[in-house]
């Protein structure tokens, strides 16, 4: 029993790491733009597809495909960010919902139209199992956890020390003031969005080897998982997101392991509704934003 508990905890941490890398991008975008990006999961999908494509068609190695995938996602994010997201500064909240929903539909179905709707088989990555605390685990999963830790350390350093990071923090606190003190809000929004989307792409290609299947609709699932996390973490709160992602990952793992696999997907949204009813500002105080 204890054995199983430990294993589920480990599974939960791995799942939580993936959620965390995806969710942090969405929460950062919300922080600076006050827009819930319904297309966020699509960048996860694009990353996975890009990596799958170059591995299948050009026989590239997995590490090269990671670089390509993240670069392509970033490029796409620059285009979307420049033409759409940037223009949503100060726009009514509904516009953000509709526009990102539109982007999501376009990207998702473009992938289906280009590559067909069926599942693709992802070859690549480090799928050999290793023993860790007596539990079997693919090397790739360990990589995911390590990358997750690095991403969060990196973000924390950036937000605290870099000029860009400071601007991001400023914009997330008060847009009007930033314009007065000469921060280019639009460019901060653009780059925050690009960073966030690229992280989603990165986590897509990181999880592809263990998730195996690649298909157009995979992004929507990810977006839906991310929403409860960013609410729980407190919208715009980076550290809160990490903790919330871990909580959800572990909770899902326990539900799948002890109650039934079929109930796993409900965990997130039951949490979401409870959170909204009980603590709409998330589990953590607003002061710790960024």
């Amino acid at each position: 029993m204890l054995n199983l508990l430990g294993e589920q905890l480990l599974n939960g941490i791995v799942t939580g790491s993936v959620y965390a890398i995806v969710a942090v991008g969405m929460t950062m975008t919300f922080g600076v733009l006050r827009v819930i990006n319904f297309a966020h999961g699509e960048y996860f999908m694009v990353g996975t597809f890009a990596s799958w494509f170059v591995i299948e068609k050009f026989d590239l190695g997995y590490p090269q495909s990671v670089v390509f995938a993240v670069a392509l996602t970033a490029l796409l994010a620059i285009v979307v960010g420049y033409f759409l997201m940037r223009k949503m500064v100060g726009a009514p909240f509904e516009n953000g919902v509709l526009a990102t929903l539109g982007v999501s539909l376009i990207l998702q179905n473009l992938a289906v139209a280009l590559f067909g709707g069926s599942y693709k088989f992802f070859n690549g990555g480090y799928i050999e199992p290793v023993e860790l605390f007596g539990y079997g685990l693919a090397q790739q999963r360990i990589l995911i956890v390590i990358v997750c830790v690095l991403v969060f350390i990196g973000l924390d350093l950036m937000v605290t020390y870099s000029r860009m990071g400071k601007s991001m923090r400023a914009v997330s606190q008060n847009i009007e003031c930033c314009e007065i003190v000469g921060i280019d809000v639009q460019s901060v929004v653009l780059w925050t969005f690009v960073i966030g989307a690229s992280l989603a792409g990165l986590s897509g290609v990181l999880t592809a080897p263990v998730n195996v299947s690649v298909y157009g609709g995979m992004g929507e699932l990810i977006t839906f998982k991310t929403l409860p996390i960013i609410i729980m973490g407190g919208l715009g709160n980076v550290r809160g997101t990490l903790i919330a992602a871990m909580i959800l990952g572990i909770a899902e793992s326990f539900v799948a392991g002890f109650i039934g696999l079929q109930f796993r997907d409900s965990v997130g949204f039951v949490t979401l509704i409870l959170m909204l009813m009980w603590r709409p500002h998330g589990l953590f105080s607003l002061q710790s934003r960024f």
Partner: protein
Amino acid sequence: MTLSGMFKGFPLKAAALCALALTGGFLSQAQAQDGDIRLGIVSPNTGSNARYGSFALRGAQLAVEEINSAGGINGKKIKIFSGDSQCTPVEGVSATQRLIQEDKVGFIIGDICSSVTLAMQPIVENAKVLLVNAASSNPAITYKAGVGGFKWTYRNYPTDEVRSLVVLDYATKQKNFTKFAVLSVDSDYGRGAINFTKKYLERFKSEIISEDYYKDGEVDFRSVLAKIKNSGAQAIIMYGLADTTPIIARQMVETGLAGKIPLIGNGEFNAPATIKAAPTALNGAIEAAAWLPGWDTPRSKEFVKKFETAYKGETPNNHAYSHWETVHLIAATMKAANSTDGEKVRDAMAKIKFDSAVGPITFDDHNQALVPMILLEIEGGAPSIKGAFVGSIDYPKN
């Protein structure tokens, strides 16, 4: 905006749009009224089961080409109309209605996904269109057919009841398994097969320890596999989706189940790509399938060769086979009836005796074909055939 302005211009605009739609309506009706035999195929062409649909369509297409190039049926050529069900009942019903109403098909080969076929049955019954199932295996389909009610539904495919029985029989008698964990897909097919397994558990003195159903699109099975590992189960009964099998197999390797607890059931365990994904997990897997490329009869081998020639060397799967064979079955029935009239073909099918690649096919009074189920075990990275079984079905008394 004033409230009274709301209806302004409404009649004109709406009239214009209606006129537009209606013009289109006339156009669509003006489609050719040629003498072709119109055959509809409802299958998942998009969505997570699109691979099945692609095999099915290509199998049927191959058969149609063979028949047409041999002169057709009484001089008439067969023309295929395809409808995408996305493996969902709602889309499937829409597609079926479209095939019947717009494409005016007289015959339909039903969906691979049982849930869709079940939903299609009342529609073809109303429209008096012959539905021949080539790949959906839920027994309820033919419970309700023939003397069970739906006169226009036939099935040329073994049912899950036979499948569950065959798998359980082999696993308990040959492998001495008594404790099973269930990990099936959440659908009429997955849940249906498990219900029949439960029906026979007592006969084979075995038990199900845990029961989990996964959703279409699920990718993380580690938690449930960890649970199964700790549960003392000797095998995992899986009636699953072909696309998910490699994911599960890989995660079985990760969690240390591979080589210890085999998969038994159905889910294209024998597909080369699946075995390649995780050979250690699939060795020892037991599967009951309607057909597999290695089936050693001349007609079967001929089909594989033709399919590979036609489609760049790709090996067909059982859906390709069953659709190919079903088109031939329909053609043969038309010849036997010496007619392409739906009602005559329907009645002739009840009496047909057709030589298929897996043996002679006849239909029982529930319009269910008596076709064998092939049992295989993966040994050393390749499927090895253990036999073919024709199970008889105990129809529930209405």
